[in-house]
């Protein structure tokens, strides 16, 4: 099982993401933003948190047009898995891999906290191990996590069971308390919380580890 973690100038969760993938049994390659291709045999791409390109123009906007983004799009188009926390979520929405956009937090403040969440669907490799209805807590650290989506798209996401996670106490004004959404093929997950920062006891909690284990199991089952 091979994971590729993208690295942009300003990424700061890339190594955490690599460690979490490795813990779950993945071989991990780090892939620089100027590269035009992913390593052959990449099963899952991690699009890390951070401040890619200094958040210039809009969070994720420049990364979404970088050379590696074209390879990421091809990977997603052929059904590859993509895990995109925080700035990664901003990048994949900017690319149009997931609907909606992330706006400035409603309270205007940067929020660094650990927040309770409810898992809204078990129907994805990312969320299967948590189980639907599970209440977990994960770290968040963002200034632009206020998920915005038009009413029609929101109804579609709801109807297609694509809302992966909801906040139990909305910290940022996100539409319908949404913290994470899935693509139509359920292989791309974008979320504002950081599962990779809650994977070992030294992190204070291990709720995030189940996401990476579930992803590994989903792939082994498929192989």
């Amino acid at each position: 099982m091979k994971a590729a973690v993208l690295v942009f100038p300003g990424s700061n969760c890339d190594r955490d993401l690599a460690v979490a993938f490795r813990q779950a049994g993945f071989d991990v390659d780090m892939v620089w933003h100027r590269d035009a291709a992913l390593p052959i045999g990449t099963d899952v791409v991690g699009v890390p948190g951070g401040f890619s390109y200094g958040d210039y123009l809009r969070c994720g906007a420049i990364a979404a047009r970088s050379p590696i983004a074209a390879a990421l799009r091809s990977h997603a188009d052929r059904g590859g898995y993509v895990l995109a926390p925080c700035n990664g979520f901003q990048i994949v929405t900017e690319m149009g891999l997931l609907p909606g956009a992330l706006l400035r937090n409603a309270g205007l403040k940067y929020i660094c906290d650990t927040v309770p969440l409810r898992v809204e669907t078990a129907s994805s490799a990312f969320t299967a191990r948590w189980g639907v209805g599970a209440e977990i807590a994960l770290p968040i650290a963002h200034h632009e996590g206020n998920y915005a989506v038009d009413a029609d798209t929101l109804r579609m996401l709801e109807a297609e069971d694509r809302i992966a996670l909801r906040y139990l106490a909305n910290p940022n004004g996100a539409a319908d308390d949404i913290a994470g959404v899935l693509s139509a093929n359920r292989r791309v997950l974008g979320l504002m919380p950081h599962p990779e920062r809650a994977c070992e006891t030294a992190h204070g909690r291990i709720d995030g580890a189940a996401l990476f284990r579930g992803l590994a199991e989903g792939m082994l089952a498929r192989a």
Partner: protein
Amino acid sequence: MRVRVTVMLKDGVLDPQGEAVRRALGTMGFDGVQGVRQGKLLELDLADGTSRDEVRAMCDRLLANTVIESYAIEMPAG
């Protein structure tokens, strides 16, 4: 030639920054400020003859996120 692109959040998209500016103006005693929307202005130095369609493509593909933003293009006359 210099082209100006103004990017604004679409009507109906909550603009917390603009709202904070509106409240601050009220606090300072400026009565009657009913709304503030904050956007951004980009000045592009472009080769003469660049078409409006090309600028529109720049806006659609990078300068604005049309999920949440609208844009206006000001080209020099002539």
